[in-house]
């Protein structure tokens, strides 16, 4: 089965990526050694989200297991732009697949600094903009406001020719309007869904379980929500869509392709199976075959009745 595809200019030998922040190749290499690269699970690698200043992340607890899913409140721990560029980034560029770097900032100016610094490094294939965080000026969550999203894109678009991917938040009434704003602002691609606002109670101690009070829901539990949003967004924009949210196998990956996604990403399932990416790719090939598709491209081109 031919799984090759082209994602806003990036040639991929398959459509299966990782969700940002759900796979740390550097740590995984320590655990699995060279075997990781020999069977690299993704056709492109998306880094965890990098911010300007270093962040240590949220206090414990950071995890809560839910019915068919989990809540995380990790808090984007990362070494900060400078240390990332001088350290991890060099290692990531050495990976056998294209590299997409995810960045987040609390103002357009800070976003600009990140985009320019990352774009200046040879070997970066694309930049994903994590807009699920408040703008210090407006106080509004950029990704929840079409206007803020479009404005941000107009600032960043001129700064690089690299593909800019906007990671959409699902915590809005109409993700398609935000996607359209991103598109008219110059985005090359949108990815969704990020995690869904959620919390968990610790009844024994009369507090929320999570150190940060709340977090984001992911895993199979959110797949039906993700499919609806991917379908709405894909039919509202002309730029490609990276679909994710609860993908666990080839069948669920195919659902996203048929809903209009050009590529898919695996997040939480990586925690259950470090080789989930490989399994999803294999499973997608056979799922396509079962449905009589001759290639991924044919499925991407098909539309739902």
């Amino acid at each position, binding site marked *: 089965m031919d799984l090759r595809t082209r994602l806003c200019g990036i040639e991929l030998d398959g459509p299966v990526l990782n969700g940002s*922040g*759900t*796979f*740390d190749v*550097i*740590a*995984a290499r*320590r*655990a*699995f*050694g060279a*075997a*990781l690269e*020999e*069977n690299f699970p993704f056709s492109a690698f998306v880094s*965890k989200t990098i911010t300007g200043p270093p962040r*240590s*992340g*949220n*206090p*414990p*607890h*950071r*995890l*809560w*297991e*839910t*019915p*068919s*899913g*989990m809540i*995380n409140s*990790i808090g984007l*721990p990362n070494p900060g732009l400078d240390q990332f560029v001088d350290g991890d980034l060099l290692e990531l560029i050495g990976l056998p697949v294209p590299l997409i770097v995810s960045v987040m900032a609390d103002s357009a100016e800070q976003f600009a600094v990140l985009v320019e610094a990352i774009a200046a490094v040879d070997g970066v294939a694309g930049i994903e903009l994590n807009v699920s965080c408040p703008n210090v000026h407006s106080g509004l969550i950029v990704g929840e406001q079409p206007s803020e999203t479009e404005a941000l894109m107009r600032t960043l678009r001129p700064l690089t020719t690299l593909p800019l991917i906007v990671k959409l938040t699902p915590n809005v009434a109409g993700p398609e309007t935000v996607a359209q704003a991103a598109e008219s602002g110059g985005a090359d691609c949108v990815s969704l869904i990020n995690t869904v606002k959620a919390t968990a109670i610790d009844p024994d*101690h009369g*507090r929320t379980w999570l*150190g940060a009070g709340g977090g984001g829901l992911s*895993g199979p*539990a959110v797949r039906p929500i993700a499919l609806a949003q991917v379908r709405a967004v894909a039919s509202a924009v002309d730029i490609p869509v990276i679909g994710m949210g609860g993908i666990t196998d080839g069948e669920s990956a195919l659902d996203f392709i048929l809903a209009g996604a050009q590529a898919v990403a695996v997040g*939480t399932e*990586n*925690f*259950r*199976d*470090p*080789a989930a990416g*490989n399994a999803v790719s294999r499973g997608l090939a056979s799922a396509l075959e079962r449905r009589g598709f001759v290639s991924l491209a044919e499925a991407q081109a098909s539309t739902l009745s």
Partner: protein
Amino acid sequence: MPAERPLAPFGRRSCRVTAAAADGGYRLFTVLDEEGPAPAPGQFYMLTEGPDWVGGSGRPFLPRAISVARTSGDPGALRLEFLIDVVGPGTARLNELEQGASCLIAGPFGQPFSLPREIKPDAVGAVLVGGGIGIAPMAPLRRHLVSRGVPTRTLLGFRDREHSGAVETLFGCEETRLAFEDGSAGHRGYVTDLLAVILAGDDRGGAVVYSCGPPAMLEAVRKMCGEHGVPVELALESPMACGFGACFGCAVPKVEGGYLRLCVDGPVVRGDQITTAMTGEV
């Protein structure tokens, strides 16, 4: 200088359960690992039961981290033994595994225990302090140290006799000192009482302490060793989603600020690396 650390086969693998039996309040089961290397003492595996892992309430969903209590055989036909304490849906599932069942494992993961000399050049002996289910990683550590000719004293504490059954199995006739909170045998009280006696002795200077057990016990051990200037390695627990550094969920506060990822920077940590062994407890 971190201890040398075996690599895990990439992904997870299905293993046959070759034995499973209740053992003094806990359950001990053995899987046959035909792919993995021998784990180093202190390392752990991420376990799921297989396709039917997800339980009736939708949990368990994530794999569960379990330490190795004993290994036998050689790579290719390695036998891994796990000791299970049922505290919720995940351990309840693992507790149901019967001989002949299959079980998915990933690992070995994590930073193992160091040799005394790796911690303190002039160290002459080791003191192992295990409590409850925490005796599991102490068993292979003891074997390891003894095989390297390290004089080792083992102190184990339990609620009551009921929960000490696995000592027989895991430590056999090796010399151990037991404490029982209910005084049903051995020393009446906490295992830390036994440690206190040793730390008061003159030979403490050459000792390195290793410990695993309930957070409160670990924190007591950590404090006592700190006060006596005796180096200690603790095998900690924290909720883990992945076990191999992917989720950043297993954060434990570091002394110098920030957090370590217990699954890759631990589970074995030096007592002076952390601010408390009671992370997330109230």
